[in-house]
């Protein structure tokens, strides 16, 4: 994008002034190079979001923003139900509550290297991944509804997790307000055999090394030290969330005109929060959040089982589990007034700063861990929510490196086998059912994650705590 199209607020804030049907400005947080490299469609999509009814303050885009559908990926927008605000199925996306969890293994890199190859094979065979994979868990109708209400708490009660995990999961592992009766039979059928599966695309399970500590004090509180080994899982609500997104996108697109909503893009399909379809979507979407929380808890349990085999006695304590595709009701201060807002984050991570009351007591004084997935070659980051993120973007930060190149272009440029061999030569073992899938997710197809997190820190969204480098990557 041409930086001249924006009003530059400061080094890392770029403002699109309201024009046409925009109700509020749009603000993109990024450095100048990231702005120059960003697709023009991010500008259009961020401006389109600013046209939706009841939007508060601004439509935001994070430093990893890229062309999405309706909302940009990396988009954040808050809506006030008292001002005709909407909830948007497109603003949450198909992979409802897609997110990341990181677990501490208590191991050092030197402990892991002797078994790296056999651990990679074991994880690949024990973690169901990719299209056509089936989990070992088959839910009947009663279990399905219990899971949709109970989330990770349900998984723990069933023996697929540890009670002390719940404190380190958003919403204590159980999203309130879930309504399984708002979830269609088709969505439930799609999920029946998918609990404890990783999915595909950019979803992964990685064994990572702490490559660099950037904030000693916070790292210590998070239990991170140089050369530590951690396990990070990135996935979401699987087929259930995809089906809920599909069905409500259609229903909201068809009924928008009945609510007097003019959609600048059909993918921005939405409904008033106070409408019947809006309330049904919120009930179903919260059930899908519970599905994602349960799924990541079960995958974490499977990973623990594999690690137990190689390293008896290691417990893999959960650092944190946080989603980046959600709509959450949160109190925020706008123009001096405390208001309950419906905050949409699509490819953006909630990033509560120090002192936030919803954080567990053990983390409250340092802020929420913000887990940033990079690419399988370049590494990932752990950040901590900054106090200023509340004012900047309703306590939100980036969620990943963000794609810089289409899958189509990546396939033309790289061979999956070659990437696998090159990374193996660098000590990174990739396991996937598809070499084409590896090529589509090539490290070079992503933005520079270092630049993205530096911009997030400079913008006051979150602060860098540790950089991680991959050792093993299981991809669907």
């Amino acid at each position: 994008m041409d930086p001249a199209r924006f009003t530059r607020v400061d080094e890392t804030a770029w403002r699109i002034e309201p024009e046409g049907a925009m109700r509020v400005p749009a603000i993109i947080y990024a450095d100048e190079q990231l702005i120059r490299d960003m697709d023009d469609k991010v500008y259009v999509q961020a401006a389109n979001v600013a046209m939706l009814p009841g939007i508060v303050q601004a439509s935001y885009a994070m430093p990893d923003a890229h062309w999405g559908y309706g909302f940009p990926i990396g988009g954040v927008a808050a809506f006030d139900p008292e001002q005709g605000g909407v909830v948007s199925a497109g603003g949450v996306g198909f992979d409802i509550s897609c997110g990341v969890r990181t677990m501490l293994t208590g191991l050092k890199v030197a402990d892991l290297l002797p078994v790296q190859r056999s651990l990679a094979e074991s994880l690949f065979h024990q973690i169901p991944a990719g299209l056509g994979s089936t989990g070992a868990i088959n839910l009947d109708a009663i279990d399905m509804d219990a899971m949709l209400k109970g989330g990770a708490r349900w998984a723990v009660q069933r023996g697929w997790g540890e009670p002390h995990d719940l404190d380190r999961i958003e919403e204590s592992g159980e999203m309130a307000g879930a309504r399984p009766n708002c979830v269609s039979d088709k969505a439930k059928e799609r999920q029946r055999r998918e609990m404890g599966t990783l999915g595909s695309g950019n979803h992964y399970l990685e064994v990572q090394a702490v490559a660099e500590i950037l904030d000693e004090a916070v790292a210590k509180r998070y239990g991170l030290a140089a050369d530590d080994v951690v396990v990070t899982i990135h996935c979401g609500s699987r087929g259930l969330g995809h089906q809920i997104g599909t069905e409500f996108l259609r229903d909201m697109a068809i009924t928008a005109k009945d609510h007097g909503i003019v959609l600048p893009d059909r993918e921005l399909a939405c409904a008033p929060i106070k409408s019947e379809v809006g309330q049904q979507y919120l009930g179903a979407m919260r059930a899908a959040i519970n599905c994602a929380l349960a799924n990541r808890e079960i995958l974490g349990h499977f990973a623990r089982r594999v690690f137990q085999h190689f390293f008896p006695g290691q417990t893999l304590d959960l650092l944190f589990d946080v989603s980046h595709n959600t709509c959450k009701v949160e109190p925020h201060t706008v123009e001096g007034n405390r208001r309950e807002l419906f905050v949409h984050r699509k490819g953006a991570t909630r990033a509560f700063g120090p002192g936030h009351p919803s954080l567990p007591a053990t983390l409250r004084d340092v802020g929420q861990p913000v887990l940033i997935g990079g690419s399988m070659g370049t590494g990932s980051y752990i950040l901590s929510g900054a106090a200023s993120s509340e004012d900047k973007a309703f306590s939100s930060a980036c969620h990943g490196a963000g794609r810089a190149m289409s899958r189509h272009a990546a396939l033309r440029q790289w061979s999956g086998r070659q990437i696998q061999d090159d990374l193996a030569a660098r000590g990174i073992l990739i396991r996937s059912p598809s070499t084409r899938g590896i090529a589509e997710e090539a490290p070079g197809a992503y933005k520079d994650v270092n630049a993205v997190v530096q911009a997030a820190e400079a913008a006051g969204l979150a602060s860098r705590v540790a950089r991680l480098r991959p050792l093993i990557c299981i991809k669907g």
Partner: protein
Amino acid sequence: MSAAAVSAQRTGWEHFPHEADVGVRGFGATIEEAFQQGALALTAIVTTAKVEESMSVQVKCQAPDPELLFAEWLNLIIYEMAVRKMLFSRFSVRIHGNHLTGTMWGEPIDVARHAPACEPKGATYTALKVAADADGRWSAACIVDV
């Protein structure tokens, strides 16, 4: 298939780029052919390996306009792929007004043989377009979230 190769013939499909996901576009002499070819493009997101026609599945859907009907059609295929753990390689579509009936032929996914590259999540309304050009050739397209 290259865009040039597709544009030279009346029936076919292509993928077109999106930064995070994949665009599918089908072409044909009729809207039904365009929908059938769009479905082949959907399968090609997942695999380029041969998919046998050992089983058939019947589906039907409806939508208020042809564009939403195309998205509904692709979403039905995605649903059947997910719950039956199948891939499909031949499609037959009939459209009457706002109603579509379809038959698709395929086989259960064999992970080793098909090496599925990704799992389509849903057909989006981004770049969603169903139209006939001046020569009467139909096309049906949208971005698929993968």
